[in-house]
């Protein structure tokens, strides 16, 4: 049941989005969560921020073909809405590289095959400057090697080991894996006092 697509290399240009604690309400405002599908979320990504800021990178046509999102600290904090990584992916992004991510965002991104890797503050500043100076600057993010190449530099990135393995093995969509040994699930349920004994 797993998609099985192995995700290792993401190549392309990057879009720099500066600012700490950019929450998922900002990535995709709640009014867009009223749809029963994820269709069309890409066009509304950062909609309110884009309207209120004159120079939002997601409004800049130079970055329209970017594959890698560059962010600062605690990106994706707040609401657990998967709509946030869905909107970013449907906009066209294939990876996020930032100083740090909220745990729920990172988990939601992983299960739809959107890798999130962290780099230190100095490196993210360098990467953002590269992308700001040249919107077409090509970057190569390699999940298995935990590297990001830009110009003549190879920058080390970090990912939770399980996320890295799930992406390179193609097991990031966990449903199949979780159903694999279903008898063991029943065994655990049967040993939980509150499932049977407290009735």
């Amino acid at each position, binding site marked *: *049941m797993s998609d099985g697509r192995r995700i290792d290399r993401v190549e392309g240009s990057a879009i720099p989005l500066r*600012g700490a604690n950019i929450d998922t309400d900002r990535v995709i405002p709640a009014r867009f969560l*009223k749809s029963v599908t994820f269709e069309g979320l890409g066009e509304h990504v950062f909609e309110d921020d884009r309207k209120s800021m004159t120079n939002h990178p997601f409004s800049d046509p130079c970055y329209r073909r970017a594959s890698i999102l560059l962010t600062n600290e605690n990106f994706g904090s707040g609401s657990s809405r998967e709509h946030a990584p869905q909107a970013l992916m449907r906009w066209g992004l294939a990876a996020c590289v930032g100083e740090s991510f909220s745990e729920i965002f990172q988990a939601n991104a992983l299960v739809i095959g959107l890798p999130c890797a962290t780099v230190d503050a100095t490196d993210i500043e360098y990467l953002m400057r590269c992308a700001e100076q040249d919107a077409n600057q090509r970057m190569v993010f390699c999940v298995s090697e935990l590297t990001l190449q830009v110009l003549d530099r190879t920058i080390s990135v970090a990912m939770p080991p399980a996320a890295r393995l799930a992406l390179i093995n193609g097991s990031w969509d966990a449903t199949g894996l*979780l159903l694999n040994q279903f008898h063991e699930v029943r065994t655990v349920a049967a040993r939980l006092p509150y499932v049977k004994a407290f009735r």
Partner: protein
Amino acid sequence: MAQTLLQKVWDLHTVRRLPTGQTQLFIGLHLIHEVTTPQAFDMLRARGAGVAFPERTYATVDHIVPTLDQRRPFADKMAEQMMASLERNCREFSIPLSDLTTDRQGIVHIIGPELGLTQPGMTIACGDSHTSTHGAFGVVAFGIGTSQVRDVLASQCLAIEPLKVRRICVTGALQRGVYAKDLILEIIRRLGVKGGVGYAYEYAGEVLDRMTMDERMTICNMSIEGGARVGYVNPDQTTFDYVQGRPFAPQGEAFDRACAWWTSIASDRDAVFDDEVVLKAEEIEPIVTWGINPGQSIGISERIPFPGDAEGTLAPVRTETTDVPLKLRSDDKHLPDTAFPKQQGERSSVHEALEFMGWTAGTPIAGTKIDVAFLGSCTNSRLSDLREAAHIVRGHKVSAHVRALVVPGSKGVRHAAEAEGLDEIFRQAGFEWRDAGCSLCLGMNPDRLEGREVCASSSNRNFKGRQGSPTGRTLLMSPAMVAAAAISGEVTDVRNLLA
């Protein structure tokens, strides 16, 4: 070996170690609601899968429901479609649903405990980040996204990585007029909005020991605002007394057996934590957020900070001479980054927040004029919250320029409040008395801010645009402080009204 509650519950629910190194964790209770599930059910159908344990799944409706006119079909066609989708999915997969026609409908994190579905020692998951609320019962509860909702529907399991545990011990006693909400806002302010990443927060100490379940729920609810996906309090007699007699609670002799087991899953006295923080409760005053994340808050006697103040104001826990005793046990080299955030990004964040909110740095927060007062949300819409607020409101009128509404967290809360006459106190003061739902906490239903309105809110998030107007401004505070702001028309120290 001595263990924490998190370790005990984790081990008991572990199905196996997955090839990725993650744990396959059994979920004892899956709570679902209308917003984060339609796509999950569609994915399930597309894969030909079913719901593995419908009897361990429970649904309600809260986010999109109008709180003024709940007649069907809803005026908002998208909301109606979303509602119909949940009804159809629950029917198709035999999942119990507390919809608007029942007396058991309400905000998912209010009804779980209220119905006795939430019980100590469980793992709980729900497609909502405030699922941490259930931790108040000694539960390990995760907020998840829609694809993970699909996983839990299909397998009753999550693929997840283990968490470290930070014990947050609160000593002494809270002053009169200082509530659980102030305490959790203070914790977030000191440890930072990402301080809890990688951790479960165990809240402990004499203050937590004395707290009611309602208060513990308020604390655990906002764990996620401090970056911690999971927050919990060890179960004790207060917990057992709350659970006893509720519709889904164990009955009779089974309840006694349950209590014995619930006692056994609490953290052992000599359990070792990855990290420990101690706070003195008496030093805390009523807290109000001034900025655009829940960590940007100050005491009611303080002034809105300057961007340059950021380091000192936001991370006092780092200073050597701090009056907050602090002990760090872990030698994990990655710990300092996440545990005691350097707040590097905070300086620019303060500037951004001041600009968005339109404040002048250095102005006292007390006296800030408000336009809307909102009593509600999964953080603070329980009976005790409404009682505290009504106590302040009684005999007063809502300030002429303020729109004020009370939205009970559940039908159960609403009925109980009406039985005590709280609705009359609020109505006579000029508050609107609404039906249960998430309401003005988030912009998904007809309740929302207009334009640049400033809202004194008992909810949990002051993010830009959170309350439905992209330029609306939210000040988070306790229900009593919201009540005080409603009647005075501006941010006010509730302790003056209690004197």
